[in-house]
């Protein structure tokens, strides 16, 4: 009988001794599922989901990279309605593999409030063409620091450049500032619809 080949354990790089124990949220098929190994613990049917664009709106997709400890501002561009609102924002984050799970976290700021962002952000609302309604305000404007501060430092990166430049905080305007607080560059994939 010829020698029976066996796995040399020195060459096993990744082993998951008990994959059944880890619960995960995933998209599979047309479902958002919570799984534990091969078991589906819960599912949310997304097949009936339809998010309507505004007649004068549209969509854009971006892939951007934010350096460590830098930030980047998301604005609505020309698909936003007159006051800068959009009806859907999706952000997906990819981290450097050298980061630990605990380090894989960035933040987003909207109208002076800061929120955590692990790997996905999905926001929806409803807009109307000519008046503010119930969308997400991506009108270009943002400030650093405490928004209640009477003279906060104005973010210099306006795109497009505002004219005249705002000189005081106006939280009626928006934009989302995404802050990479990790020690490595992060990759973001962003979809905006209106």
């Amino acid at each position, binding site marked *: 009988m010829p020698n029976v080949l066996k796995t040399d354990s020195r060459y096993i790089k990744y082993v998951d001794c008990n994959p059944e124990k*880890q*619960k*995960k*949220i*995933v*998209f*599979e*098929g*047309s479902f*958002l599922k*919570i799984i534990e190994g091969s078991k589906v*613990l*819960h599912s*949310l049917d*997304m*097949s*009936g*989901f*339809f*998010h*309507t*664009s505004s*007649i004068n*709106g*549209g*969509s*854009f*997709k971006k892939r951007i990279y934010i350096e460590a400890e830098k930030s980047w501002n998301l604005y609505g561009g020309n698909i936003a309605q007159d006051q800068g609102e959009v*009806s*859907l924002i*999706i952000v*997906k984050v990819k981290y450097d593999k050298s980061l630990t*799970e*605990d380090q*894989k*976290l960035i933040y987003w700021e909207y*109208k002076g*409030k*800061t*929120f*955590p*962002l*692990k*790997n*996905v*952000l*999905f*926001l*929806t*609302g*409803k*807009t*109307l063409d000519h008046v503010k*309604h*119930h*969308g*997400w305000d991506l009108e270009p404007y943002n400030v650093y620091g405490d928004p209640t501060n009477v003279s906060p430092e104005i973010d210099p990166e306006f795109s497009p450049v505002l004219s005249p430049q705002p000189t005081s905080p106006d939280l009626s305007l928006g934009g989302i500032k995404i802050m990479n607080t990790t020690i490595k560059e992060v990759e973001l*994939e962003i*979809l905006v*619809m209106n």
Partner: protein
Amino acid sequence: MATAPLICKADLANTLIEGGQFNRCTFQVTKDSSVLNSFDFCDFSLDIDDFFSQSLKLKGGSAFLLDDSGLSNSFGEIKALIISVKYPASFTTDSTKYINLIYEGTVYPIGNFHIWTGEPGSVSGRGISIFPNPYITSPLYNEGGIVLHNPHSNDVVISTIVASGGTLGTGTSGTSGTSSNPTTSGTSGSSGTSGSSGSSGSTFTYFGTSTTLITLP
């Protein structure tokens, strides 16, 4: 995959409109048969510890305080919040298909779907603050807590998933499940796991579901 609705405007009769929908695990923005943009969720995976899901019919004008079911950490934070909203046929205008999410004293819109994710850890602010300060009585819950408010006169159906995770684990708030709510009807039970640890804890009068009608600023 959902079918794009037909719209009946005089100038655009029987035109397929532009919109976003899931084609398996890819979110596609389509117009007629063209795919204008696509966004891949097939590689999305978020490790969690435990979760709690709930479906409820939220009556017009009523509000609902999300229950952490004992899943939040010592800062009252969770790892993921997923909300899906379905509007009945009585919502005839697309622009009215939104509800309000009230978080830390501020009102945000939800159209039909919402995902927030964080990574609760050794300091506050890394997760989603779902457990309200027990001494706050304001319906705006400006120190934690998330209220869903239906500002319309018609009912909406809301599905929520609250998931724990992160480095500090779960189980400090010490309640589980939800109570029935006079402002909601047809609250279906939760699925999910047996889930949370958590001690017996004290029960606050607002905890669980809320009967408070929110007056928006």
